[in-house]
């Protein structure tokens, strides 16, 4: 580890916000130290790919090292979530929080899909525009963003150039999103898939809930031309969990650029708490532990200092660090005068609907998603129920049912029913050309919608520190209390309806299966997370988006950071990432995370 050196800025976390911040500051000549809990970025992605190939369950975490000293939630934890302590997150319910994140340098962008949508202008004032007008009114002003779309827009443009987004502005101006005439995305649009085209023509002219149903190509952080010394997409259909050829952007790009500008990165360094000089209110150190063997004992500890401190460890870990940092003997914790740290935990709950098209649509090809129905992301209905976007998947029923494995195994096993449904006459026990023919008949027709629903913030959805459960280094594990309110559930129900109506218009046959669950919620015999809304059951999935736990706002009484992402309570502390989102809209968060990082970087530089 490097010897004593004074830094201008200390950053905790080498994910996209930490890496982009480090790079931006270093370009301006500042000295930066980044701490990351994960191991050093491998020289090439072969070890991750090898682990991926040999994994039975190809979850988003499958390629990445599992480390007792640097633990993170696993998708498979959901199967036993009601057994407290069985997974890294201590799930108190009533519903499980099912999204995961990575704790390796490069962060969750290792396994993200690459979808790079902007939030809509209306998304920035959910309360003022909609919730306050509901009958009865819902929510409060603290749910509005303290900045407008127009204020963030130049940073969206900069983030799109910095990351490398492929899109055509002519196809992305809807629901208030507009581009200046001379603005161009850095790369041409990714071609829409055959599946997309089929769904689009099947939809034709259609409305849902008085809004048009329109398919748009998705802006993606994925090379459509050689760009930034990376290859073009080869349609490995593996964005989640890992792109084998780095055609998809991940934050190791900016870690490398930052290191080339002299930024120091300490790996295997877990930030545990923040120290504050209670006299000045300024942060005066970040305490850390270090390890050598990922499941071994602690091998070091210390306190890192700088002029400005930035936490960029994503929404749950940053909240955990802050909650673990007592503020002198006030009984409070750092940066939490508002008592909002850890609260308002939000996901984009996902409704998966899947079907067989009448014609062959050839999924399992191309990037995981290249288009979506984006026209339903806004409208007057938001006074009554949550908005949603409908991601069109190119991977057949892989997410929905674990295909091709599930269907192919059932086709092979005598007596099995490959497609669940009361009247299906496809039986298992096939071999030879008959087997191949049925595999083809079924798999080539599979497609799915994954609808991301805007979750309304709730004070009671929160991260706290477990009193009972610790990780291998003795740090408290995050304890999660999580539920869906009716506004959000109504959005999920509407999404399911919209998918159903599209299937009907396409004459596709729906196979969405929801395990039965006793009311009011929870679990089928398989411990899957099922909830009930208006007497129907729905299976709850997470989008992998973790948001809201240290929201931004103008009022220090109800928010943690100000509009420049600086802590209201400590003038030399900034918090980055989707934890600052006061509301979540329906855009995948990464592009907004990057734009906010660049906005905050300007503020940090002014303060140095």
């Amino acid at each position: 580890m490097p010897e004593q050196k004074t830094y201008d800025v200390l950053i905790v976390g080498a994910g996209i916000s930490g890496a982009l911040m480090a790079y931006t500051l270093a370009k301006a000549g500042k000295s930066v130290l980044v701490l990351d809990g994960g191991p050093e970025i491998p020289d090439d992605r072969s070890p991750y790919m090898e682990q991926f190939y040999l994994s039975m369950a190809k979850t988003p975490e499958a390629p990445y090292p599992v480390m007792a000293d640097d633990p993170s939630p696993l998708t498979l934890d959901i199967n036993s979530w009601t057994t407290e302590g069985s997974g890294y997150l201590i799930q108190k319910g009533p519903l499980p929080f099912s999204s995961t994140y990575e704790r390796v340098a490069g962060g969750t962008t290792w396994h993200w899909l690459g979808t790079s949508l902007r939030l809509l202008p209306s998304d920035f004032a959910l309360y003022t525009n909609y919730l306050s007008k509901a009958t009865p009114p819902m929510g409060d002003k603290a749910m509005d963003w303290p900045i407008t779309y127009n204020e963030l827009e130049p940073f969206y443009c900069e983030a799109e150039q910095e990351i490398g987004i492929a899109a055509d502005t002519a196809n992305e101006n809807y629901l208030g999103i507009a581009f200046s005439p001379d603005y161009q995305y850095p790369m041409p649009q990714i071609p829409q898939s055959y599946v997309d085209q089929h769904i689009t023509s099947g939809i034709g002219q259609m409305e849902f809930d008085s809004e048009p149903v329109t398919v748009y190509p998705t802006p993606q952080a994925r090379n459509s031309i050689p760009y930034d010394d990376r290859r073009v997409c080869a349609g490995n259909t593996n964005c989640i969990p890992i792109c084998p050829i780095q055609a998809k952007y991940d934050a190791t790009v900016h870690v490398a650029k930052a290191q080339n500008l002299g930024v120091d990165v300490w790996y295997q360094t877990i930030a545990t708490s923040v120290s504050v000089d209670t006299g000045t209110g300024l942060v005066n150190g970040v305490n850390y532990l270090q390890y050598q063997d990922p499941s071994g004992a602690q091998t070091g500890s210390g306190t890192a200092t700088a002029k400005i401190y930035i936490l960029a460890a994503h929404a749950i870990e940053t909240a955990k660090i802050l909650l673990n940092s007592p503020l002198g003997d006030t009984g409070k914790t750092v940066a939490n005068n508002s008592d909002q740290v850890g609260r308002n935990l939000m996901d984009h709950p996902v409704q998966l609907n899947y079907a067989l098209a009448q014609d062959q649509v050839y999924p399992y090809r191309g990037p995981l998603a290249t288009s979506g129905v984006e026209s339903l992301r806004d409208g007057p209905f938001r006074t009554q129920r949550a908005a949603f976007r409908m991601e069109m998947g190119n991977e057949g029923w892989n997410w929905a049912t674990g295909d091709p494995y599930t269907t192919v195994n059932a086709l092979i096993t005598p007596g099995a029913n490959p497609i669940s449904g009361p009247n299906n006459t496809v039986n298992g026990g096939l071999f030879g050309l008959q087997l191949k023919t049925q595999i083809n008949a079924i798999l080539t027709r599979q497609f799915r919608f994954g609808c991301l629903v805007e979750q309304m913030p709730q004070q009671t959805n929160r991260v706290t520190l477990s009193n009972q459960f610790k990780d291998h280094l003795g740090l408290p594990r995050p304890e999660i209390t999580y539920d869906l309110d009716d506004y959000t559930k109504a959005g999920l129900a509407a999404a399911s309806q919209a998918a159903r109506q599209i299937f009907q218009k396409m004459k596709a046959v729906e196979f969405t299966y929801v395990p039965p669950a006793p009311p009011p919620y929870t679990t089928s015999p398989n411990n899957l997370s099922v909830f009930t809304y208006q007497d129907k059951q729905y299976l709850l999935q997470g989008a992998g988006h973790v948001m809201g736990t240290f929201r931004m706002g103008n009022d220090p009484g109800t928010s943690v950071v100000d509009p420049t992402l600086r802590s209201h309570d400590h003038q030399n502390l900034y918090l980055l990432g989707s934890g600052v989102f006061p509301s979540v809209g329906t855009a995948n968060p990464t592009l907004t995370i990057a734009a906010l990082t660049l906005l905050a970087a300007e503020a940090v530089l002014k303060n140095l």
Partner: protein
Amino acid sequence: MSTDPNFNNFVGLSSILTGYPQDQLAPQIDPIGLASEYLTWMEQNADQAAFLKTLGTFQNILQQVASQLPPFDPNNPTPQQAALMNQLVAAQILSDPAMGHIARRMIRLWYLSTWYTTEPPDPNGDGQVVSMNAYTMGLAWDAAQAHPMGYSELHFGYWAVAPPGNDVSPNAFPDVTVSAAPAPGQADKPTPRVGLQRGGI
């Protein structure tokens, strides 16, 4: 060519069981050697008595076909001979408890690159992926006119057009009629989630 005496029968039977020609499963010029790899795997992991009996029975089936429908070149069967081979494999191997077990394990190796802990696989899909090359050459993806997720040899933009057809495509809508999602309580066995989902957007 492998020097393992079981090799030819293993490949020949694999061809019948998978519906793929021998020269695709085991090309004469083969830089990967997947068929040898699977044969070795079966010899090390399957019930040996049942495995050898299966291969011997297959050998026997070839002789039966030869005697019923001469002249018979097993590398180049007539449609009639191929149909008879399939029929005898179904009747004599797949219907037999022990040999059917072996045969279905072979089919899962070729199609899904996976050795499951039990045959048939349990609902959690416990098992192991045989090797990286096995994964990248799984037949299920090829049957779907696609490629294994994580391994594409194709070029940018290919996904915008339909893939080339194969010997089983185009084909009719699978033989299902489903009028509605299952009512609560009806599905006593949830959809087996063998191989589990990836999750996340």
